[in-house]
């Protein structure tokens, strides 16, 4: 469903992704990990079409992403920072994204789930960071997309909403969707991820399940396993 071939991207002299090849055929939760500057965000942005690769091809659901932007109808994206135009209201924003996408959406259950009803007529500029992040989650999950890209999804969320978000992610997984997550919170990764994709210096250094990673590094928890990957 996602096929990445010989992907290469550099910014000036700095090579961020070097010959990255990756095939994700099965639904599930894939955690993309790696030290700062290892190319995680760049990789996700290339998938989204925000960063244009120097070389290589990406197919999402058989569609070449450099050819048309229609493939993004099948892509949900939860950005790290939730910032919207200050002067439009929450419900206007939701309508706008639905209007732009032109695909059916179900925002109401999510608005109820995160208790956003009192905020629907409030301007986005007046909302707190956490509330904006909840709006962000609604925008991502209200469409039935086959791929979900979540960049640090837990930033700014309170524990109750965090649990709800985890349930949403688990539901999406049950529906056979591909979910790509980056996070610095190892507990979350341990709890959710089916597979770990570890990037180092623009290449895939390790790909496999959590148990495989622990066996390989002979460590008991993910944090130490990652640390020992970096040392070796």
């Amino acid at each position, binding site marked *: 469903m996602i096929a990445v071939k010989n992907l290469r991207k550099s*910014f000036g002299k700095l090579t961020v992704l070097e010959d990255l090849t990756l095939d994700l055929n099965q639904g599930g939760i894939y955690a993309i990990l790696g030290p700062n500057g290892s190319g995680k965000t760049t990789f996700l*942005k290339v998938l*989204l*079409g*925000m*960063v*244009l690769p120097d070389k290589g091809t990406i197919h999402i659901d058989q569609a070449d992403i450099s050819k048309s*932007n*229609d*493939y*993004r*109808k099948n*892509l949900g*994206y939860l*950005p790290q*920072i*939730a*910032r*919207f*135009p*200050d*002067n*439009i209201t929450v419900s*206007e924003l939701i309508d*706008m*994204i639905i*209007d*732009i*996408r*032109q695909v059916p959406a179900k925002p109401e259950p999510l608005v109820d789930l995160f208790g956003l009803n009192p905020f629907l007529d409030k*301007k986005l500029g007046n909302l707190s960071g956490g509330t904006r992040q909840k709006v962000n989650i609604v*925008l991502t999950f209200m469409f039935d997309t086959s791929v979900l890209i979540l960049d640090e999804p837990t930033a700014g969320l309170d524990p109750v909403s965090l649990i709800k978000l985890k349930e949403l992610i688990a539901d999406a997984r049950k529906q056979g969707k591909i979910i790509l997550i980056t996070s610095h919170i190892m507990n979350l990764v341990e709890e959710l991820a089916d597979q770990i994709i570890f990037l180092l210096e623009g290449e895939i250094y390790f790909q496999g399940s959590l148990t495989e990673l622990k066996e390989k590094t002979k460590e008991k928890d993910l944090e130490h396993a990652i640390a020992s990957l970096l040392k070796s």
Partner: protein
Amino acid sequence: MIKILKYSFSDLMRSKWSYIYLIFYLILGFVLLFLNNDVSKAIITLMNLIVVLTPLIGTIFGIMYYYNSREFTELLLAQPVSRSKIFFGQYLGIALSLSLSLVIGLGVPFLIYGIFQSTEIFNFSMLLVSGAFLTFIFVALSVLIGLYNSNKIKGFGYAILMWLFLAVIYDGVLLIAMVMFRDYPLDNLALAASFFNPIDLSRIMILLKLDISALLGYTGALFQKFFGTGAGLVTSLFILLLWIVIPVGMMLKKSKSKDF
């Protein structure tokens, strides 16, 4: 594109800065008209303000909106819409809302004063047209600067510098050049120089329309001599249009190859 335009326009029309801008023009229009009690004098005073002020406001609004909406633009980029639609839509949203503030802000006082009964109606519309042109030009230039500079401080600096150069420094340099090379025939050079500055060009355009040769100055007089009033007007409007089309084209081209 229309959808993006619709939302960025409605976002900006509700921003307090649009209102401040609108109220400023309302007050300016009323004060000038009712203190002067003379429409043509008010129009000349307004012209001197508008050719400097609309570029400044367009520049500041354009660059501020570009940087402020960066994260939102990223969210839009992740939607199934093309980049040119996103940027063209946002550009039109800013330029239209600013032009609307200008037209309403100055239109209302002049309407109340009775511009339609006056012979100055065409001069007044010329003023609004050139103000709108300058807004569209400088918003395009500042968004272009934003696209080329991911560093906010740098982009802001360049944008203000661009305004300062075109509004103030350009004329000064031209004047110094004229004085230094006064022994040579400079007519054509001066004429060509005005094409490269939309602010100068709008000033000449309004003055040609107002037909006040005393205010035309050196380049303006040349302009009138070479083109005659009618042809001069059409030429300057055409060049102003190029000043919009070229930066917007560059903006769309850059947006297609940029990494966000």
